[in-house]
């Protein structure tokens, strides 16, 4: 790995960034095709429901498969390490959420950990409910009255997370520098020290 630019520290590996952007791309493809299927006015506008449905279904399968492939073929151990980092909350993380001290944060703050955990859960639920919708159309054994509701509720919940995420990554002045980390991999050292004081950057 290159030593990196002076004054900058490495935050995300290539694999992590690929996972993030493939995840974003897949999400928007499914959001777009899903809204056409979901909103009556858009359905009327676009027509071609069977085609849109195929794109939505196979796009969803491809989305999940691509993420699994990238994680397996890329820096697998790094991804697992990151997953563990996200899973575990330390005392400072709980304090960060409840606005107590000390609350110095590591590479991820508690909000980012929650966002990641919820998004991962939503993906599993989107996948299961989507597969049930698809299979239920062919076989009554897979049909539950609440499958559509679950799929819809996930849409609203993940839109709420997405809006918060976009605000913090693109607009909010003190946090939007994080976007650089997800695009180029590194962030300013002083920014890292200020927002992620307990993050061991390896320097």
């Amino acid at each position, binding site marked *: 790995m290159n030593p990196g630019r002076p004054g900058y520290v490495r935050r995300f590996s290539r694999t992590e960034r690929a996972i993030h952007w493939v995840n974003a791309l897949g999400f928007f493809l499914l959001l777009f095709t899903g809204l056409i*299927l*979901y*909103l*009556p*006015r858009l*359905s*009327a506008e676009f*027509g*071609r*429901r*069977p*085609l849109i449905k195929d794109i939505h279904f196979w796009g969803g399968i491809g989305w999940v498969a691509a993420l699994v492939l990238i994680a397996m073929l890329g820096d697998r151990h790094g991804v697992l390490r990151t997953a563990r980092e*996200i*899973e*575990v*909350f*330390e*005392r400072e*993380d*709980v304090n960060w959420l409840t606005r107590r001290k000390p609350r110095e944060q590591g590479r991820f703050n508690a909000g980012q*950990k*929650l966002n*990641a*955990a*919820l998004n*991962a*859960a*939503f993906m*599993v*639920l989107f996948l*299961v*409910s989507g597969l*049930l*919708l698809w299979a*239920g*159309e*062919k*076989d*009554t*054994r897979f*049909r*539950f*009255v*609440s*499958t*559509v*509701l*679950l799929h819809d*509720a*996930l849409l609203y919940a993940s839109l709420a997370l997405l809006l918060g995420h976009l605000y913090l990554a693109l607009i909010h002045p003190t946090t939007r520098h994080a976007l650089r980390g997800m695009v180029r991999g590194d962030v300013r050292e002083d920014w890292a020290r200020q927002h992620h004081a307990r993050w061991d950057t390896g320097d």
Partner: protein
Amino acid sequence: MDERPIGRGVFLATVAGGLSSLLWGKAAWSYVSNPISRAAQAIAPILPSQGWRIYTVGSSMPVFDPVTWRLKIGGLVDNPMELGYLELRALPQHSQVSVFHCVTGWTVDGVRWRGVRFKDLLAAAGPRPGAHALEFVSAEYPYVDYLTIEQAMLHDAMLAWEMDGKPLLQEHGAPVRVVIPEMYGYKNVKWVAEINLVPKPGIGYWEAGGYDNDAWVGRSNGYTS
């Protein structure tokens, strides 16, 4: 060090809660849906109105032209006929408020329909004694479905041209659709172009894929309550 697997807990609890909602979601939703859908409509008119979803099977939705549109009534009748849109609307009219159930689980309450009962619609054509079912051919090829005459004569079955006080929108089957609240939506054929009297019900579009011919709400297609 004080470490707690809260992230993992949030992930697992969300997955578990979501999966279990397959069993309780609909009941919970019917409890809270009224205030929510009222609020949702107030803030965003683009949201699916009262929970309608538009299911179609063709590559485009049929376009209604009031000048050229005709409803054909044929098959086992004494007088095969074609009705124009205004002729159809001159028939005896009825209004009703009923619930619309989709077999995939969503439901729309309190839909206001206006249209003609099948008894009045078919009177002039004169069904012959051998006719025991109606074949509804949709302008959306290849959608077709059937009702027995008995089912079509249910007190709240109709061929509707108005929904919630307005002419049927394109996505709801303009200009006319079947309304039979006792049965799931796939029996409520949209964009009806042709009604044929036939000796017995055939196999409809979704029925060919394994759905029940008699789509009674709550007691068909694997549902029991």
